[in-house]
């Protein structure tokens, strides 16, 4: 036999409300019978509403997209994803918060990049924009390589620098790069005793001319 306390638990539990054991207790206990009668309208109302809503409520199970549901106008497109309930829309408020945070982060990262570049001189910034040929990327050039490297720079980049109709920005980049190549490798060559010989061996007279154009900042 249930106690009065257990009977109250069962009465307020939709599953066990009409159990046989509950009825037995109510038959034997007038106090609980009075209470059950008094509470019956409220219990019936809860029972009916729960029974109806069980099948009516939509569920975000993650197996469908809410865009297909009629309540789609309550949330914006492209809402922030959640770790659960895939396809379920987040509210407008959170979406807007996310957008604001994303814009804020982009601004911060742009400003940080600008601050990092402030300390760099224009020349190095320009050189970064141009891909060095393999010969120019050698970290330990030797004297024997110097002539070939200078010839390579002249043949490639000085031609670009010499073009009169080149965009000012591109021309500046090309000249900057060549200047750096020439300065570096000529220094190596000049450390040898036969500097003149080294320079004279740099390819052909046309290359010399282009090299001069570069070094003195003149176009062709």
């Amino acid at each position, binding site marked *: 036999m249930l106690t009065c306390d257990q009977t109250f638990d069962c009465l307020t539990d939709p599953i066990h409300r009409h159990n046989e054991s509950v009825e037995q207790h109510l038959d034997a206990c007038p106090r609980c019978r009075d209470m059950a009668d008094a509470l019956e*309208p409220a*219990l019936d109302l809860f029972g009916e*509403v729960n029974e109806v*809503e069980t099948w009516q409520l939509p569920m*975000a199970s993650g197996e469908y997209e809410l865009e297909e549901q009629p309540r789609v106008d309550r949330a914006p497109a492209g809402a922030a994803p959640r770790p659960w309930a895939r396809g379920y829309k987040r509210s407008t408020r959170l979406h807007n918060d996310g957008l604001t945070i994303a814009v804020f982060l982009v601004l911060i990262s742009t400003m940080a990049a600008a601050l990092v570049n402030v300390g760099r001189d224009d020349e190095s910034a320009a050189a970064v924009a141009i891909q060095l040929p393999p010969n120019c990327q050698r970290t330990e050039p030797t004297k024997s390589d110097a002539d070939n490297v200078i010839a390579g720079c002249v043949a490639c980049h000085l031609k670009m620098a010499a073009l009169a109709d080149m965009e000012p920005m591109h021309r500046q980049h090309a000249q900057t790069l060549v200047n750096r190549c020439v300065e570096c490798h000529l220094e190596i060559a000049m450390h040898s005793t036969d500097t003149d010989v080294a320079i004279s061996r740099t390819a052909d007279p046309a290359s010399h001319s282009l090299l001069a154009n570069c070094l003195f900042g003149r176009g062709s």
Partner: protein
Amino acid sequence: MNLNDQQIMAQVLSGRTELFDELVRRHRASMLRAACSKLRNSAAAEEAVQDAFLNAYARRVTFNAQYSFRGWLWTILLNTCRTLARRERNRPDQANGGDLLYQNEPVSNDDALGHLLNLERNALLAELLNELPEPQADALRLRFYGGLKFEEIAQAMNCSLNGAKQRVRCGLERLAASVRRNGSFSQDPERDK
């Protein structure tokens, strides 16, 4: 899935966060019903339930496995609903009511009358619950919408076990008296004629 809520939560805490899906699937419908009843607006209720799940997920490390998961989750929901209700009250241009509970369209003409009766029942219950003192109304929502045990209600409402039972009992008595005053509702249209 055979795991109970506590076991799933333990797995979530150990890194298998995708299992939180299952907890959402299990509890969302009942939480939505309760939130609809409390806020009397399905859009606000949807937002409250989402916020509750988001908060539960974000603060999952604060969950104490010694206590009931449902009690913990419903505590979060009640607090979220209170916050949302306060915010809605402070918004003067907010339209009030008119959108009480989720209701699908009737699938046939035969369902139309039953559908209307359901709407009325939902509206009446939500209205009567809102006339009760908040602790009693919340206790009834936890018991009947959430299906929480009295121990879990006591945990969620931060009161004793007897206090939780007392709130449910008093709430039901007042609610029954109000239903009698407002007349009966039946699911069978013929019975109401």
